[in-house]
């Protein structure tokens, strides 16, 4: 808790290329948002009102991926002004769904698509924050939840390092007592290679996990790809499983490329 008299911690929320869904974790906090605003100083949060992008912050939450030349300049400034930089969501941690363009001839796309391509200052690749500046903590998920955000704020306010979730979605499934959709219904589920944190929402509705929380550490993608093939997925469908919301997370990228080679060879 705050010692009375000490200044409140300064919190900033920045946005890059994204859908705004991760910032909503703040705006959907309800009454908790008003309480949070009492405990910290929200110094920059364009969508909520406060505008002061170059101000010093104790914690900077960054949503979105790097996708224009200006982004690279802006993230450097944010890094300089922030004590802790927390990347939130798949866009900021893996380039997001828009990184699907990385596999394509993106420069060709832009030139072919726009009648005024000069107005579209778009980099060929959509990349995560950590490719460009030091990131102190990454929160995975598309979107991250309010619970994840509050846990980070609380940990940092207490002066302890936030903790990461090292489990896979299957662990949450078992904890919640959900029947396994892969075993019981032969559905191709990404849960075995996906980081826990959502509470196994998709298997809870009797459907496949599609990996929106990104790869878990030590994910055995080979075994899962083999399992998908046994279930009758063709190589193209296996590629699509790994090439989705977190396509540029290195483990998923490698798995997609491997399955793609099987398709081509």
């Amino acid at each position, binding site marked *: 808790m705050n010692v009375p008299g000490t200044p409140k911690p300064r919190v900033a929320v920045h*946005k890059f*290329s*994204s*859908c*705004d*869904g*991760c*910032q*909503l*974790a703040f*705006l*959907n906090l*309800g*009454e908790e*948002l*008003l309480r949070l*605003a009492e405990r910290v100083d*929200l110094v920059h949060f*364009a*969508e*909520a*009102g*406060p*505008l002061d*992008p170059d101000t010093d912050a104790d914690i900077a939450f960054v949503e979105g991926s790097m*996708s224009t030349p200006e*982004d690279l300049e802006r993230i450097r400034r944010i890094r300089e002004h922030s004590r802790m930089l927390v990347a939130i969501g798949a866009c900021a941690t893996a380039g*997001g*769904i*828009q990184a*699907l*363009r990385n596999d*394509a001839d*993106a420069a060709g*796309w832009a030139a*072919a*698509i*726009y*009648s*005024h391509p000069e*107005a*579209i*200052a*778009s980099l060929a690749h959509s990349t995560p924050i950590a490719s460009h500046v030091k990131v102190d903590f990454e929160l995975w998920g*598309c*979107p991250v*939840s309010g619970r994840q955000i509050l846990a980070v704020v609380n940990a940092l306010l207490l002066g302890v390092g936030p903790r990461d979730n090292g489990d896979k979605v299957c662990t949450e499934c078992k904890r919640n007592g959900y029947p396994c959709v892969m075993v019981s219904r032969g559905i191709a589920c990404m849960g075995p290679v996906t980081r826990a944190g*959502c509470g196994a*929402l*998709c298997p*809870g*509705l*009797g*459907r496949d996990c*599609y990996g*929106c929380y990104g790869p878990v550490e030590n994910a055995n993608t080979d075994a899962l790809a083999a399992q998908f093939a046994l279930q009758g997925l063709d190589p193209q*469908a296996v590629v*699509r499983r790994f090439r*989705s*919301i977190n396509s540029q997370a290195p483990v998923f990228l490698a798995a997609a490329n491997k399955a793609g080679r099987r398709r081509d060879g």
Partner: protein
Amino acid sequence: MGEQRRSVAIHVPVLARVEGEGALDLRIDDGAITELRLRIFEPPRFFEKFLEGRHYTEIPDMVARICGICPVAYQVTAAQALETLFDVELSPWTRAMRRVFYCGEWIQSHSLHIHLLAAPDFFGCGNAIDLARIAPDEVRRGLRIQALGNELMDLFGARSVHPVGVRIGGFHAAPPLARVRELREKLRAALPDAEALVRWTAGIALPQDDQAFVSVATRHPQDYAIEHGDIAASDGLLISPSAFGDHFAERQAPFSTALFSSYHGQPYLVGPLARLNLSHDRLPPGIQALLAETGLALPSRNLFHSLVARAVEIRLALHDALRLLDDYRVPESPWVPVVPRAGVAIGCTEAPRGLLWQRYEMDSEGCVVSARIVPPTSQNQARIEEDLRLSLLEFGLDRPDDALRLHCEKVIRNYDPCISCATHFLRLNVERP
């Protein structure tokens, strides 16, 4: 005025309290506007391009990511398009629950906009946290209503941002009766809150304005159109969504990554006020009476009434969600099987910010050949600029810079522009050799 002539250039580098990133450039020379442009500099995310080759089962989860504030609109519109092409006979349960799910998003998005984004303007506050100091009960009530909208989305989708419940043919799972009962009680308890919200917004001293514009929205024979309907315009047009391209066109502005839409060559309005102007006769009698009590005359030509329109639509969405959940039963199956077929799929619904139109060309395997998505904000873009010109003249160009800037921002926020989704349909600019 003659002696006060001057040159001013106002540049608002980041617009606060809008979704996504945009900027405004305004130049006034000798008492006349010489430059006015709303720039959108969200980098394009190429959705239409990378949907190509994806399987139809993946589309709802992918298009949701266009916008975190209205993912349901993108999901339900895509499902409607594909189900129509695949000739799927949806169960009455699915039809009803799709609307309830969509009502949740209207409630959430509208309440967020009214309280966190728009209302601070009318109380001289910079943001909702300041507003909460002078109007604590109203802001708390707004946050409660927003949370209830999120709960409705959560009921079918397990979470409210990028919910995971929609599948082509229905929903993945049906919520259990006990949960529906519990939520029904909360919805009922929120009705007085929503009525008070309508009265509160109608009592705010909103700026006066009077502009001529065409309203465009979907219209349904019985319902206040949300998840289904034909496309109507206030000049009498009534067409099926498949004829959209015959009347509406887009062009890219050189300085923007967004497209400007036009209707027969003119700007037009989509969104809550356009819907209320066109379909207030479809509101249930009780809500029509409430509306009459506020004294709001329809059709309205004052965009600031969008605030009241959002409140009325929250009241409607609560009403319809309650009505449709009233005799809720868990169905035998929440979805029907689907067989894909090749062809063109077209879907059209009312996202919280207005008409959303989607078109997919599908192959016989059920994969996307090409996609085109026309979100509401791009449709409003030309109207916003037209409105800015007119309302600045009305407001007075000789006002101080700060006042001009603030007024511009207020005008823009009426449209609740969602700039994140305004950017992805640049595909329409394809210049084919």
